[in-house]
């Protein structure tokens, strides 16, 4: 058992190392090209300069503020969008009447490109936090809503019948059968929603923010500091990956019973699944 775990850990580590080879080579080539004067530093600064800029920002405490503001926006937008999607998705997934009543409207709203809401949200909610959080929430809403609704609809009718045999109905049936059976689809929706949340926070912070990583991007462009832009992009990548990893770990905890989830994971720990989640 221990030996097998060691071996799979070693395999995972070696595959992470392999994945690092190409980026490391690219970084080295980039650095060398910059130092040799092959690329213009005002367009593409060397990696070492990006790192130095980030360090400077971090030391002054400015970076922590921007990161905190962006994280909070994503968090509140995610919570708001998830709450609405969970409520409506549960209603339309559970009851055909509610589905016929609400789903056509929501599907119609879904076909609006979400960024198109920006002017209206600013008009309604002002340029401060409310409009930004709302935009992010809209982005988070649809993946969560759609996955929850279809997850509920797809629950094996035969399992529901077992619940009925034991006299479960209403909330009891939801808690004992529907909820656990829907959890895999729900987590898929949450992860998709979080990904869109990160996409939309950039859009939201483009529209007149004075703080946040998105603001830092715009600021870097306007003040001609490409190192700041590249640094912000890298931070977005890291934060997005980390938050997704947290959700994936939570999901793994709840969904370890799944045939495909753990079983495939354990079997292929050295191939596909684990490195994707581990290489941050």
């Amino acid at each position, binding site marked *: 058992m221990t030996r097998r775990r060691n071996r799979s850990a070693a395999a995972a580590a070696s595959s992470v190392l392999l994945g690092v080879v190409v980026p490391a080579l690219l970084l080295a080539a980039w650095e060398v090209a910059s130092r040799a004067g092959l690329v213009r530093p005002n367009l593409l600064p060397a990696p070492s300069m990006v790192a130095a800029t980030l360090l400077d920002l971090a030391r002054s405490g400015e970076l922590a503020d921007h990161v905190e503001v962006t994280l909070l926006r994503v968090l509140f937008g995610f919570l708001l969008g998830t709450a609405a999607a969970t409520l409506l998705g549960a209603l339309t997934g559970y009851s055909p009447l509610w589905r016929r009543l609400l789903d056509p409207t929501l599907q119609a709203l879904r076909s609006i490109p979400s960024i198109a809401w920006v002017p209206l949200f600013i008009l309604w909610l002002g340029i401060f936090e409310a409009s930004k959080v709302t935009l992010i929430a809209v982005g988070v809403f649809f993946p969560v809503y759609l996955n929850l609704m279809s997850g509920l609809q797809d629950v094996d009718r*035969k*399992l529901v*019948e*077992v619940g*009925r*045999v*034991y*006299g479960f109905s209403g909330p009891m049936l939801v808690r*004992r*059968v529907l909820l*656990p*059976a829907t*959890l895999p689809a729900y987590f898929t929706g949450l992860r998709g929603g979080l990904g869109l949340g990160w996409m939309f926070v950039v859009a939201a912070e483009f529209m007149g923010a004075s703080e946040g990583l998105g603001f830092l991007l715009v600021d870097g462009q306007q003040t001609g500091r490409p190192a700041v832009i590249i640094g912000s992009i890298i931070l977005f990548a890291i934060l997005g990956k980390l938050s997704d990893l947290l959700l994936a770990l939570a999901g793994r905890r709840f969904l370890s*019973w*799944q*045939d495909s989830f753990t*079983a495939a994971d354990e079997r292929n720990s050295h191939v596909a699944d684990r490195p994707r989640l581990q290489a941050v």
Partner: protein
Amino acid sequence: MLRIARVSKRFDARGAGADGGVFAVANIDLTVERGEIVALVGTSGCGKSTLLRMVGGLETPSAGTIDLDGRPVAGPRPDAGFVFQEPRLMPWLSVRDNVAFGLGKLSRAERASLADAALDRVGLAASAQALPRELSGGMAQRVALARALVTRPSVLLLDEPFSALDAFTRMSLQDHLLEIWRDDRPTMLFVTHDIEEALMLADRVVVMLGRPGRIHRDEPVDLPRPRRRTDVRVARWRERLLDDLSLALSEGSPAADAVAPAAEIADDRQKRRVANAR
């Protein structure tokens, strides 16, 4: 005691008027004594599963009444355990929690000890911690049996419980079911399309035929227990039942191991006959 009186079931056909719809079973009268094992055998589509589901409270009769121990069946109830054709285990629950699924408000420790006792009865005490995906088909169906037994129901309803299993697993589970029955003698009503299974297990065989299904034969199986699958008397019974199921017995009648396919052929013939009659 289970009493089924003049029960009919009509399924409403889509778009049919008030007198439309399809009768699954018509005018069924059947009484099962306490502790009796009754097999419902019949051609496919004769409504035997529908009848069982009505007894279990999963369907409501269109007409007639079903009483279980003197109380009318108005829905699923704890004194009737149900075993489906498939195990239908909750994949997110351990074997123990699956067995405890139907237990009402009890403490965690009580639930666990009752579940473990039920698992012990089906010979799976060692697998209490396992997840359903780790079980073989036969093991999963035994867990389903334990889940039905854990509430100590007075009636056990089984809907083709072993039909999805291979022949050897099926035989061992049939023997196992009889052992369990010997312990606290629940009334057992089971649907099967396997004539041999009916003859090995049942005190009484009820043959249902036609659409809508009606009872064609209702007779005690007067064979001493333990029964052997190779017994001549079992073979004689089997011929009679196959005859019922409209299989004309040709010379070189089916070998003992070809019973289930033979029953299916009978099914097809019956279907064709019904179709022609219309």
